[in-house]
């Protein structure tokens, strides 16, 4: 069954959206049961903002993130990122697109135990063809930006949870992506570290003009987001600006 999104019209902005979902459907098959997760959902995400997708567990927010980031393809509908239809890209082209344009921060920090913080950040730069000398300079600069330069030589086992997440953010940022996706980046962190991570994501959006799309049910994240898309049962039920309070559409 395909249900129409109850979303009010997409916010009007002076700039074009960098991410767009147009009437996308997504379902998963588990055994003989087919679960429809997204129902004809449409959304537009803009650069220079920290956009938050929130909602209860199982509402489809992570699925929406995976579609918008090109990690999965929709069953129906269209996903456009930076003006490109992701469905039209082959596997290799999609890998190249992610390499050049996207950064990811996950709930688990997923850092390589053998590498120092600096090397973790350098690693993706190598895939861009950057030599170790140049990548070290850039990695250190990004670590500085997230307040981790002084811990650059430490391995994950020597870092706290908050520090690991900041290294993970630096790793995602090092490529200077136009699109940054974060999935529950604060859920494994205490209040102070969670706050710091949210601040960093917010700053990245503002200072670099990056499109930051974050999935979270952390109320702190909601307070610091520029825009919140509330989801329920596979559709966006509210699109609002935290500054104005829930219920008001972001026009």
């Amino acid at each position: 069954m395909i249900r129409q999104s109850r979303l009010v019209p997409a916010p009007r902005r002076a700039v074009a959206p960098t991410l767009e979902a147009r009437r996308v459907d997504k379902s998963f098959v588990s055994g003989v049961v087919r679960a429809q997760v997204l129902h004809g959902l449409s959304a537009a995400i803009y650069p220079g903002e920290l956009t938050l997708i929130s909602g209860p567990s199982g509402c489809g927010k992570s699925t929406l993130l995976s579609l918008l980031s090109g990690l999965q393809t929709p069953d129906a509908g269209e996903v456009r990122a930076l003006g490109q239809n992701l469905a039209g890209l082959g596997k290799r082209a999609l890998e190249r697109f992610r390499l050049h344009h996207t950064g990811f921060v996950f709930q688990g920090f997923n850092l390589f135990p053998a590498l120092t913080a600096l090397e973790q950040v350098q690693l993706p730069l190598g895939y861009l063809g950057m030599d170790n000398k140049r990548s070290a300079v850039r990695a250190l600069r990004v670590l500085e930006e997230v307040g981790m330069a002084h811990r650059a030589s430490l391995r994950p086992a020597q870092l706290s949870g908050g520090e690991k997440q900041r290294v993970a953010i630096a790793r995602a940022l090092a490529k200077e992506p136009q699109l940054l996706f974060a999935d529950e980046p604060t859920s494994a962190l205490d209040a102070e570290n969670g706050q710091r991570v949210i601040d960093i994501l917010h700053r990245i959006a503002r200072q670099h003009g990056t499109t930051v799309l974050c999935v979270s049910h952390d109320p702190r994240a909601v307070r610091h987001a520029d825009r919140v898309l509330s989801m329920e049962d596979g559709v966006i039920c509210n699109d609002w600006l935290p500054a104005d309070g829930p219920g008001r559409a972001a026009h």
Partner: protein
Amino acid sequence: MIALARKTLAYEWRRFLPAVFALGFSGVLLTVQAALVLGIFDSASLYVSASSADLWTGYPGTQSVSFGRPIGPDVEMRLRMDPDVQDVEPYLWTEGDWHAAGARGGDVSVYVSGISTGSGGPSGAMMFSALLPPDLRTRLDEPGAVVVDRADLGQLQVAPGGEASIAGRQVRVIAALPGLRALGGVNVLASLDTARRIAGRDAPAGATYYLSRLRPGTDPASVRDRLSPDRAFGPFETWTARDFARRSQHYWLFGTGAGVAVLFMAVIVCVVGAVVTSQSLIGVVAGSAREYAVLHALGASMAALGRVVVEQACWVGGLGLLTGAVFSAALLALADSQDVPVAMNLAVSLLCAALVAVLALLSGLLAMRGLLRADPAELLR
């Protein structure tokens, strides 16, 4: 590029240890097995390789030295007629049961080699020239004097200087040497006269083989070709020493089924090595699946991640090779010190190393399956 494979290997070496050991022990098994086979089959051609003859003449179609049949004394004349043959020496092969004096228990089957005890011309006697010092050879002239391998003394229940009988004929062990061990029996060296006495009525008028030394610089193959069978001298066939040694080895390797058994064992070792190594590597890769998934999400291609896994396999292979080489060398040295017939040459050791390298690479390719779990979408929940 950050050396992810090498750094992970160095930091998490404990996780890679089972794979390194699996490859190392595969290498040890392959090497020791090959060394044993080489050693055993070297002993099949010992009679040829420890002697300095250029040509061997025996009964037509003889498969291995130990299967010799008598040839007539006229053959010696035929050989001496060739202008390039410098010297000819008879070699008598016979078998008998060894019974040590005062020993209890059964007899031991022995191969008696009746060899020339003379100086054998300007270059010395040919048979067992690499093993038997000239003075000891001369002492074999003493009636009933025999030389055995020192590793066989226990089996023969005799000590140097001790007495025994072969086929009822009295013999005395005048010395025990290393390197005389034979395939399938015990080698006993004696003079031609002693051997004839042991053979008794079975002793041939001629010999089992005639060994020929050629003039320096002569091509053995061309002389062999000249010595074509001639009815006037009775049945005989001539082989170059190299051909005859190979003939003996090939017979034991391929004619007896031993070669197939060895090959079968080698395949088993390779399969077990590949399975254990790849399973260990798959475990390591699967353990880092989430980290690989993040890299994949960030745009690192599956091919690039696969290269990391294969590089790790290569490192593991290198370390396994080193472990295998050290253990193999130690084991072969130990075997050699215990008179176990082992032999190794560069070609075979390189072949074993190449097999281990192929195993490592194969395991790495199999371990790439572990990357299938590195799906970035799985990281989202």
